[in-house]
């Protein structure tokens, strides 16, 4: 079962630059490993991550097998107004996971 950890400050001053950190539990099987019997283990990775704020995309990442298991991402945004961050991870084998976080922005 997919589980996400999202770290967003609950409050910020208007105009402040805030850090957003996300962690998604996922094996990120690169597709290059073999079993002892010599069979290739098929690729199973998260290929795309996006973050929207009040519906507008503010950050997006394309991930490759070279991203470590349980992908961690940290990025920044400007606190403009109170609202909701929505996070989405999309991957192989129909993997989709979502998370959200709200922020209160004070003038």
């Amino acid at each position, binding site marked *: 079962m997919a589980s996400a950890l999202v770290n967003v400050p609950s409050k910020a001053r208007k105009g402040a630059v805030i850090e957003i950190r996300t962690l998604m539990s996922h094996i990120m099987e690169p597709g*290059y*490993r*073999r079993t*002892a019997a010599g069979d290739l283990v098929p690729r199973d990775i998260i290929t795309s991550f996006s973050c929207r704020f009040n519906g507008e995309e503010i950050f997006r990442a*394309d991930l*490759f097998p070279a*991203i*470590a298991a349980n*992908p961690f991402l940290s990025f*920044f945004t400007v606190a403009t107004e109170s609202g909701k961050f929505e996070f989405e991870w999309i991957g192989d084998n129909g993997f989709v996971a979502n998370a959200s976080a709200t922020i209160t922005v004070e003038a």
Partner: protein
Amino acid sequence: MRQMFDTSHLSRRHVLQFAGGAAICGALPVVTVRPASATPAMLASAIRDLVGEAPVKVGKVKLEIPPLVENGNTVPMTVSVDSPMTSDDHVKSIHVFNEKNPQPNIGNFHLGPRAGRAKVATRVRLADSQKVTAVARLSDGSFWSASVDVIVTLAACTEEVP
């Protein structure tokens, strides 16, 4: 210590080192089939696919990655770009490449003036000691890069699945 130089005699230390190495690599006698790894030429062509004919200048980009990595399976990496991040002058995207993993790409990160700060961090896999390169695309269409040489003692990606 005299035994260390006597090649006809296996010291206890040698036996232990061998046993430790075998435990880390899985079953040592099995011939492992390694996938073809990316080459410096693939690194160059992956960057060329991104930038086209535009020149890539060295500078502005800061790539932070430990120079000596014990475990290539999870390597912390931070890329930051010196940019005011205004609507006129900002970083549009950051692309990270490697030289010797099976694939030259590590990740692409798309941001905009709304980011406030052009900085991303993640954890990557490195299959071998190699060069890692970050390229930033700026809003004026220019490309800037930084490269770091990393030494990896335990490689990722190619080990056997238990």
